[in-house]
């Protein structure tokens, strides 16, 4: 197997899994919140928030990466503040790859969850309120369980996107083996040298296998959840 896959590639696979996992897990609660705000909220900055969330989708990934670098780089306003206040550095660290992946996946996740929120029958939420549930409790006991399939879809989309994200990541955190070289960066690196195609292909296959596995898992979970909710 060692011959089949160069050691740095194995590292990249592992790193990508870690990055995608954290990007998914960390962005999900925020995505749910933003989706709720966009679906239900009536506040002045709503259009702006909506636009902001979609920016990573609209912009070429390289631009997003570049903007991240400007903001979260060591010298960037947010980056230096994070560094000074909390000792957190994102640029050129795997944590930065998490940020890049999360940002790139964010519009997809929010959209998926938002669609689910909009499909929840507000009459059920009213019923819960008459039974004494506060807005937060209505959300936790009624809305959240009902949008679970959408959240699941959002999570899978986020994970899949994170596994494939390249442009923003390489621009923001570079392509440092063992630290920021994700699977797509490794594929890119192999593709850019003569004779690297074969190694790249192997990595592509691994990437496909992982993502399809996640997808199948999500489909299955989705079906379980849907059956519980009583969907068809």
């Amino acid at each position, binding site marked *: 197997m060692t011959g089949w896959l160069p050691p740095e590639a194995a590292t990249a696979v592992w790193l990508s899994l870690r990055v995608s996992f954290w990007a998914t897990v960390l962005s999900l609660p925020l995505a749910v919140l933003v989706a709720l705000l966009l679906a239900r909220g009536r506040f002045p900055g709503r259009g702006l928030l909506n636009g902001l969330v979609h920016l990573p989708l609209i912009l070429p990934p390289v631009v997003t990466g570049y903007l991240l670098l400007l903001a979260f780089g060591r010298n960037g306003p947010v980056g230096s503040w994070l560094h000074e206040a909390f000792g957190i550095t994102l640029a050129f660290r795997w944590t930065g790859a998490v940020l890049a992946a999360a940002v790139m996946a964010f519009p997809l996740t929010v959209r998926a969850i938002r669609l689910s929120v909009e499909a929840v029958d507000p009459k059920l939420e*009213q*019923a*819960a*309120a*008459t*039974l*004494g549930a*506060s807005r937060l409790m209505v959300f936790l006991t009624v809305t959240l369980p009902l949008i679970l399939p959408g959240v699941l879809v959002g999570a899978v989309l986020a994970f899949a996107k994170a596994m494939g994200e390249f442009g923003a990541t390489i621009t923001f955190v570079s392509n440092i083996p063992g630290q920021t070289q994700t699977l797509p960066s490794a594929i890119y690196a192999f593709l850019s040298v003569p004779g690297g195609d074969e190694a790249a292909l192997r990595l592509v296959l691994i990437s496909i296998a992982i993502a399809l596995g996640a997808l199948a898992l999500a489909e299955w979970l989705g079906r379980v959840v849907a059956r519980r*909710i009583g969907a068809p």
Partner: protein
Amino acid sequence: MTLDVQLAHDFGGFALDVEFAAPDGVTVLFGRSGSGKTSVVNAVAGILRPDRGKVMAQGIVLTDTARGLHLPPFRRRIGYVFQEPRLFPHLTVAQNLGFGRWFAPRNAAGASPERIITLLGLEHLLARRPLALSGGEKQRVAIGRAILSKPRLLLMDEPLAALDAARRDEILPYLERLREELGLPILYVSHSAVEVARLATTLVLIEGGRVRKAGPAAQLMADPALAPAFGLRELGAVIRAEVAAHEDDGLTRLTASAGSLWVPHVDMAPGTHLRLRVPASDVTLALRRPEGVSALNILPARITAIRRGDGPGALVQLDCGGELLLARVTQRSVEGMGLAPGMDLYVMLKALSVAPQNMGGD
């Protein structure tokens, strides 16, 4: 007053403008389809925020648009059985039933879950999800869910419409008991005069978004002028009586001011006061005291008024020992028998036609 409602709301195409006060007990909103009953109940629940108005329950201001006040539904502790079941699809029947309990104050008085589950016949359904329930089963769960949330006030929007007569006859007495034992005030929407007679302390007649008449149920139901609103067939007086004795052959003797009445066994202790609905169409009049008939209840009465209808019928109002009774007879009988106000005669009621559904505690 337990409940003071004053509302104005414009739906665009339909305007609601109602005002009524309801004392303790069961207040029934009665009116035709589309008259605004659900809208009133929604406003009390806090789901509809009226354009203008004030809603108070047990001295607490729930909504007061003049002061910009609108208590959110979850702070009202008002149980609501919606017109459609609205069960939570992701929860089992047991979880649906327990939902409100979760949020109710621990020490609040409330019905026991086991009791409610048995009453509503839900034992074998507890593990199911709403999708696998029949229409009536869903509605029963919704009733249980609202009752078990330990509300201070219960709103019920045609809760029994989807149920069969037998189940309805089981649930109605229980609602009466809720009213009495827990002192739980109920605002009840109904199309059924039987339910009104049985449950209503107060009756609010709604027509086209306005209150046609509101007041004590017994009084309104014996008002010939309101007959068309109830539907002629539903007309009937309500008289007060007291349980005198339970007799061996399964009958219960009641004493009303007009005399003794025998009815099928009533599950109330002697001395209990109750209300008895006597449908106008169940009363037969006789000039002489009838002998050798199967009707057990024969009381002397005096005609106080006769109101001829457009059709073949006439309504005869009778004073029967101080209580008002209504009899619906044909105009032919009025002529043939020579009926006229002031005349003394006898009313004849079958013991069994005064069915338990027409009686309620008072």
